[in-house]
């Protein structure tokens, strides 16, 4: 039976939800606002809102001072590439864990997740050296590999959860129907898990796009994505908040738009299995 909710309670929870949403969105909103202010207005104290000097100058300067399209393209290649490579490895792995689990499968899953708890800085030096030795430093393929490995536990965990929802009998039916292992994964499992795979893909593109630590550490110029583009605006001469905000806004805008249009899919994907 549905629980009755009084209009007063509904109003209060709605207001609370709006308050939290505004609180979360405020830094992004303020950053976008700052990107349209002059440098003087941006650092004014108390902060200026209505009386600020508005300008598009920051965007013009950021665009002319740096090669935005190249950074953007690097971001696209690295985030999409690492996600696709991750999926190619994770789909068979998650299949094995979900449908032919061994005695230690649960432990393996926990161990994979535990690697996400390790501070990245702890392995920075070995990975940096390794990348230099292998000639992967400042290459897109190097970053694709690094980000793929970083996000692989999340991809496998998400897919494992989706695959567990698919009845094993359907895969057995495919086996009886003569499907080889790859045909079973290709024609039966993957199409049935498309919503889950799509959510996993979206989330990982976003994670890879937003990753800053490794992308800044492992690149200099050639393979640098938008996170490095933002960092390049924190000049040694001092912080130029308005320009930094404009650069940040340009860096996050593509992924913000992607997230906005796919939010239904993302929310469904992230709560899949939790609410049934």
């Amino acid at each position: 039976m549905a629980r009755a909710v009084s209009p007063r309670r509904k109003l209060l929870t709605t207001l609370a939800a709006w308050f939290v949403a505004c609180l979360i969105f405020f830094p992004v909103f303020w950053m976008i606002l700052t990107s349209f202010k002059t440098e003087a207005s941006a650092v004014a104290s108390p902060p200026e809102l209505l009386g600020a000097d508005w300008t598009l100058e920051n965007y013009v300067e950021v665009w002319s001072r740096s090669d935005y399209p190249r950074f953007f393209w690097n971001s696209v290649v690295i985030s999409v590439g690492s996600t696709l490579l991750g999926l190619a490895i994770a789909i068979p792995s998650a299949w094995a864990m979900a449908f032919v689990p061994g005695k230690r499968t649960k432990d393996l899953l926990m161990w994979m997740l535990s690697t996400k708890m390790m501070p990245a800085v702890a392995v920075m030096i070995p990975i940096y050296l390794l990348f230099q030795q292998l000639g992967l430093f400042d290459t897109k393929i190097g970053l694709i590999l690094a980000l793929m490995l970083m996000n692989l536990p999340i991809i496998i965990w998400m897919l494992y959860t989706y695959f567990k929802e698919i009845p094993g009998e359907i895969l057995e039916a495919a086996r009886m129907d003569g499907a080889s292992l790859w045909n079973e994964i290709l024609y039966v499992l993957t199409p049935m898990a498309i919503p889950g795979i799509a959510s996993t893909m979206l989330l990982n593109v976003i994670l890879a796009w937003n990753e800053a630590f490794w992308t800044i550490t492992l690149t200099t110029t050639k393979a640098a994505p938008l996170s490095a583009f933002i960092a390049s605006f924190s000049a040694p001469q001092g912080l130029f908040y308005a320009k930094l905000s404009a650069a940040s806004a340009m860096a996050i805008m593509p992924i913000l738009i992607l997230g906005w249009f796919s939010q239904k899919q993302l929310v469904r994907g992230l709560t899949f299995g939790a609410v049934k």
Partner: protein
Amino acid sequence: MGKIQLRQVRKSFGDVHVIPGLDLDIEDGEFVVFVGPSGCGKSTLLRLIAGLEDTTSGVIDIDGKDATNLPPAKRGLAMVFQSYALYPHMTVRKNIAFPLKMAGMDQAEQDKRVERAAKVLNLANYLDRRPGQLSGGQRQRVAIGRAIVREPAAFLFDEPLSNLDAALRVGMRQEISELHQSLKTTMIYVTHDQVEAMTMADKIVVLNAGNIEQVGSPLTLYHNPKNVFVAGFIGSPRMNLIEGPEAAKHNAHTIGIRPEHITVGDGPWEGVVGLSEHLGSDSFIKVDVAGLGIINVRGAGELNVHHGDRIKLAPAGKIHRFDANGLALA
């Protein structure tokens, strides 16, 4: 061809011996039903034949060839699952054609076979629908369609009707029997419903704790059960099994009397009616008889006996005798 032989087939899951060692011959074209209580190993046995489970030891021969280590697809068998196991993202047409596509058959031949199966199973109007848009009975037909297009050596059915309602179950039961009549292909059917077993089978295999208790035609099992387990399992309502002095009178440890072999009216046993069910054609009553326990009686539809009545009963028909080990006495 669809001759299947099992030789000393064993299956263990860790320390649990689900099937401790079993021999069975299934002749070409036979309709064999595996029946037994929950957990008796009947589904496991079917999955061993299908190749979905590996045998711990023993040999499974299909048409004279050792198939023990062959993968499911290479055994030439088709299976219909309890949950139908249809591919939800494919249309009925694609579901039925899937095994043909996997076999690399050309499109024209695929279409021809799908159309033919759809006609036999009354699915011609639903070929472009997805399984989610079909009723339970239609889904089951699609599952059968997917099995028949391959023209397998044998069909395996794993409790295929247990998700259907009672009326549909009777209809589908007849359809499967008719399909067997027309295809004349070996069918192995697993069920816990002994009415399905009795009505469909050429040969029933009664399983208990992974062992075969008896193999035979439905009427052989009904009239000549080899032991107390089969006597109690086959037949509805259940056979009355009586021990003690009453059995001793017949030089047996246990005697068994079918409910229809007891008459109401006059007789040596007197008791109080507990439950009485009047179905119109038959009446099923349970009578608490002092010294014997609850006795099941099957009487005529118009039997005028109700809860609380004191009545007399008499055995009037075959009395089955069993020794202390539960085995039938001659």
